[in-house]
C-alpha cells in the first residue's frame, strides 16, 4: 500500500521552510526539496501523516463551551476581542489617528478586569493580565505610544495562544512590558479588586 510522508522543504538559504509531501514507495528515498522544485498538485493515498506544521488555535482545542471550564471559553472570547482591539489600535496609531487608537486601547482596558476573573487558568495568566492592567492604568489617561501598543498586542497574542503558560514565562513577557515604558507596580491595588468584583 502506498502512502506519503511529510518531508522538510528548504529555502535558498538552506533554512527549513515548511514541508512537502512525497510518495513513499517501497525502496524509494525521500529527499528534501526546495519550494521552487514543487510544481502542480500531487495526489496521495493517505496512510498516516506526521504533521508538525502550523500551530493549532486554542479555539480548535476547546471547541465546545459546554464541555470545558467556563474560564476557558470566557478567556477565549475576551482575548479574541482584546486581540482585535490591539490590532485596531496599532493600525490606527500608524495611520496617525491617535484619538481613535486611544479609544481602542480604552475598550481593551475595559476587558481586563473580566479577563482577570479567568486567572484560575494559571498563575502566568493572572500575572500577565494584572501587569497589563496596571501598566495602562499607571499612565493615568496618557495615550500609549507605538511601542507600548505593540507590546500590548504581543502580550495579548501570547495569552491567546498560550493561556496555560507558567509564571516564569509570564515574567519574561512582563519584563517586555516594562521595557516598552510601562510601569506595572500596583499604585491602586484596590481598584482592580473592586472592578473584578463588579
Amino acid at each position: 500500500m502506498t502512502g506519503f510522508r511529510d518531508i522538510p522543504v528548504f529555502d535558498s538559504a538552506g533554512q527549513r521552510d515548511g514541508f512537502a509531501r512525497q510518495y513513499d514507495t517501497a525502496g524509494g528515498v525521500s529527499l528534501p526539496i526546495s519550494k521552487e522544485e514543487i510544481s502542480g498538485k500531487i495526489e496521495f493515498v493517505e496512510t498516516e501523516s506526521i504533521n508538525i506544521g502550523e500551530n493549532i488555535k486554542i479555539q480548535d482545542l476547546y471547541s465546545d463551551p459546554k464541555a470545558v471550564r467556563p474560564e476557558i471559553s470566557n478567556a477565549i472570547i475576551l482575548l479574541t476581542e482584546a486581540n482585535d482591539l490591539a490590532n485596531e489600535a496599532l493600525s490606527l496609531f500608524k495611520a496617525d489617528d491617535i484619538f481613535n487608537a486611544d479609544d481602542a486601547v480604552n475598550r481593551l482596558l475595559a476587558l481586563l478586569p473580566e479577563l482577570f476573573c479567568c486567572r484560575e487558568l494559571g498563575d502566568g495568566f493572572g500575572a500577565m493580565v494584572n501587569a497589563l492592567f496596571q501598566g495602562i492604568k499607571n499612565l493615568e489617561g496618557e495615550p500609549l505610544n507605538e511601542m507600548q501598543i505593540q507590546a500590548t498586542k504581543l502580550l495579548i497574542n501570547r495569552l491567546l495562544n498560550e493561556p496555560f503558560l507558567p509564571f516564569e514565562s509570564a515574567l519574561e513577557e512582563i519584563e517586555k512590558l516594562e521595557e516598552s515604558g510601562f510601569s506595572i507596580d500596583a499604585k491602586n491595588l484596590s481598584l482592580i479588586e473592586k472592578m473584578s468584583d463588579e
Partner: protein
Amino acid sequence: MSLNLSHFSLVKVSFEIRYDNAYLFWDKAGHIGEASKSLWPKIKIVSGEPGKVAFKIENKYLIQVELGKAFIIAYKPHSSLKDYIEMAENLEAIVRKELGISIYTRLGFRPFYYKKYAKSEDATKDLLDIKKTHYPTGKHFNIEGKPTKANHILRWEADKIGLLIQLTSEGQKYEFEPPMEADEITPISIERNGILFNIDYYTLGSINVNQLNVTDWIKNAYHLIKRDSKVFLEK
C-alpha cells in the same frame, strides 16, 4: 436496527501525546519511573527497553513512555473518567517536565465501546445492516460462504482536528491452562462476541505545551464523541 452509545459499554480508553524524539528519554527514564511511583505507589514495571518503558497499575492502567510518544490506557474505566483524567494529567506533566517537551505533534483521545452478542454472526449481521453493506449470497469462489466478520473504518477530518472511526464485529477466545501441579485452579475458556466501536479523536498540527490543559481537552473530546457518535451508529 439502529444503535447508539447506550447499547454499548465503555471497555477501554486511551490518551496519547506525541512529540519529536526526546533524546533526554535515555537519561530520564528512571526519573519518570520514580515520579510515577511517588504518585501511584502500586505501579509495576512491565518492560524497560532502550526506547520505551511501560508500567501497569493494578491490572487497570497501562502507562507507556517512549522516545516519541507517551500514553495511558485504562481498562473498564468509570464512564465519568474522573480518575482516569487525573492520571492522564499527571502523566503529561511528568513527561513534559522530565523530557523537556515544548511542542506536541499530536494529541489523541480514544474510547473503546463494546456491545455483546451471543454469536459473532449476529454481531456481523447487525453491523452490515446498520451500514447497509451489500454482500452476495449463493455460491462464489466455489464456496457457499457467508459474512462472519465485518469492519468499517472512516477517517473524518477538518483542518486541525480529525477522527478515525471504527466499527468491527469480532469474536474473541480467552483460554488459560494452569500448570498441572496447580490442581486447585480450573482451566478457563471464555468466548466473547460483539461489536467494537472506537473513535480516535486527534489533532492535526503542532500544539505548544502552554496551550494544553489535559483535563479540559479530554473532557472536550469525550463530550463531542458522546454527543455525535450516533451519526455513525444509526441506520
